[in-house]
């Protein structure tokens, strides 16, 4: 089967790649483009470790084909920190010890960004339901929820 040419934008960079029609976006990111910050936990859309933003929307990259990335704006975990350093969300996850093993962390941070882009002052229930598509097996979610609350506060202060 011949490969398909895809032209897309990833973390602000114009990127072109060839991929098999059956390859998931996750596989393309990880195995072909070297963007291994996006993690595979299940490949069935149940764990959220592969969360990315597609035109600002939260998506499991394992449920999207690489060819579907044509002409979209992708943000992966590698694109969350800016040239000036860590994003507030990343800083708050660290300060609140909201990660233990860290495998789910990229997905959670991307999902938190999507949440806070849409709801600047979410209550605990909103946070818990927004993050319900991301599994964490280490923390019991307590410190993650607190890190998100602290991120929202810090972002409100900055704004």
């Amino acid at each position, binding site marked *: 089967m011949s490969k398909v040419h895809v032209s897309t934008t990833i973390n602000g960079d114009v990127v072109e790649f060839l991929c098999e029609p059956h390859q998931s976006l996750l596989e393309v990111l990880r195995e072909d483009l070297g963007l*291994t910050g996006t993690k595979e936990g299940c490949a*069935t859309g149940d764990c959220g470790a592969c969360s990315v933003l597609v035109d600002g929307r939260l998506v499991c990259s394992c449920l999207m084909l690489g060819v579907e990335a044509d002409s979209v704006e992708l943000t992966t975990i590698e694109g969350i920190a800016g040239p000036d350093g*860590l994003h507030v969300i*990343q800083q708050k996850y660290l300060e609140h010890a909201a990660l233990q*093993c*860290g495998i789910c962390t990229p997905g959670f941070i991307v999902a938190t960004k999507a949440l806070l882009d849409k709801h600047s002052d979410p209550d605990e229930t909103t946070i818990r339901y927004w993050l*319900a598509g991301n599994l964490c*097996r280490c923390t019991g979610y*307590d410190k993650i929820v607190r890190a998100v609350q602290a991120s929202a506060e810090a972002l409100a202060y900055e704004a």
Partner: protein
Amino acid sequence: MAEAVDLKVVGTSPVRPDGVDKVTGRAAFGADLNLPGMLYGKVLRSPHAHARIKSVDVSRALAADGVLAAVSGADFPSDRLDDLARNVIARDKALYNGHAVAAVAAKTQQQAEAALELIDVDYEVLDPVLTLDEAMAAGATLVNESQHTNGDTSKPPSNIAVQQAFERGDVDKGFAEADVIVESEHRVPTAHQGYIEPHACTATMNAGGKATIWCCTQGHFDVRSLTAGVLGKSVGNIKVIPSEIGGGFGGKTIIYLEPLAVKLSELSGRPVKMMMTREEVFRATGPASATWCKVKVGAKKDGTFTAATAWLAYEAGAFPGAPIGPGCMSVLAPYDVPNLRIEGNDVLVTKPRVCAYRAPGAPQSMHAMECAIDELARKLDMDPIDIRLKNAADEGTQAPYGPTFPPIGLKKCLEAAKNHPNYLKPLAEGAGRGLAVGFWFNIGMQSSAEVRIAEDGMVTVMEGNPDIGGSRASMALMAAETLGVPYEQVKAHVGDTESTGFCNVTGGSRTTFATGMAVVQACEDIIAQCRQRAALTWDLDAEQVDWVDGEAVPKPGVNADVKPLSLANIARRAGRTGGPLLGRASLNAQGAGASFSVNWTDARVDTETGKTDILAFTAVQDAGRAIHPAYVEGQMQGGAVQGLGWALNEEYIYDERGALENPGFLDYRVPVASDMPMIDTQIVEVPNPSHPYGVRGVGETPIVAPLAALSNAVRDQLGFRINDLPLSPPRVLAALDEQG
């Protein structure tokens, strides 16, 4: 042991050294290594739970597009047919649905997957053995025809691989003295650790026969020795580089893919990467044992226990090794019981070989006993904390498994719970409250550490325990405290099998205790060297020099007009005083202190749907001393939610032929954020006298008590007990129907 008031760094919660890489996606985990020319390896797994393998033919697969190597059991040394090797790849029999039978390596993942379909396996399908009842029944189908209980060949073969028991006092007399007796039996299903990172590795074998393995593991030195064993190689020919590890909880303490990847690399001459799918993780890696526990406990009217018994049967899966030892050790460990009998049975079934899961064996047996004690308290009209305080083990109590407890924190935890606002708070309308005690004995074992001082005084700690939950931060904190320097001056690293000294696995809650102790001793080595270097500089004896707050100073009374020398001062001049500063320590740590916990939860069952909501959860635990309190809380919270997941929903569901029906996170439902409330924690500190800072392991105890705490809460609300787990909606609804 240092007093808490003297501590400057230990007991703070700074950002971990590896944190930035983990929040930016740069940290490299098991599946994150891609090498030039790399192949992808895939495993063919048995579709049968129990089958004789008459032949495996990989020749059609080898001829397929892109395929460069294929292996089956016959490609591995036949003199290494121990259980581990046979679990890595089946030989004469497939013993569970998902058991590896063959493997291929191809240029793309798709080619490798396609090639699996070209492998011809001739199976003679046998009857599966799927439950403890079936396996232990007379005339049961045998999982292993040459397995005799405890190796006693004078008796017929049996699926009961090991039977062990211990006894104290006179149980019959004890029950005769009791005013109240509770007897019950409880089943807990198979649960998986559910680490989010599937097993993965990349292996390369060079032309000289030297293998390098990159993998996610809790113990790379174990990967080295186990892989060497399965392949019949020397450990000197295998280097293992531990990647970052995406959760383990005990499940990454053994090997599955590594020998296959090395063999495929050897045959193809290429690097080979292997990654399990989530389905493979569920079907083929070791979960926790499904269990059947019968318990009995008797007490006087005042709540004093007179006797207790426990009979435990644990599924081992296809090979012996269910954690009946720890199950038996834990079941009555919190209590001073004069008369007791505890028996454990390690039972083979045609399911995946079980592996450690956080306090392996304890959650199941203690669930049963803590439910029975809850019923006993109800019969005696006693508060669940009071009945436990009445019988609580303390310093000097002989543990049921033999040794006498040194200082332990159970009573302090119970007292803290009794005075906790969450315990004094009235219960919400229509809800139930349940409490239980947890325990884990913790282990020590072997560790090494090296401390290197750079020319600017920066401290590098090298050790060999993969960091799963922030242990680099704990190591750096203990090193900074010992050396008397700021935390920021220390960086802790996990070395590979060739760059750091031997460390046993990250498991048994041993890392902060044992490897921490090695780090402290290596820092003391540095201090001794610094005193000597300063003495040389000042023309004094080392005995005349002290180390205070990170500086060498003359001891009080020593007449010397000199300025203190910091670590940086000494390091900068190290070439003139004997060369680089390098501290080392290796040890076999003794005296791991047991950690006790008390957990309680407020929960509400919706009697229409059978769904249970967790309204509140509080965990109190003795940490000995919390080196990094935020990560200790994290262990307590994470363990609590894993335990609640097991109690609420998690279970392996098999069809009648032994195929797992829920091998994915959609149907094997672990808790998500919206299922849980905040998990409140209180750390109790009864220092462990065997550790320089008083550390007890904290990682495993947290999963133990939540199972019974939830069972007891549901009992409290409904007014009757559901003995078995999980308390999933179907089970709760069935129980409600039965009650009418």
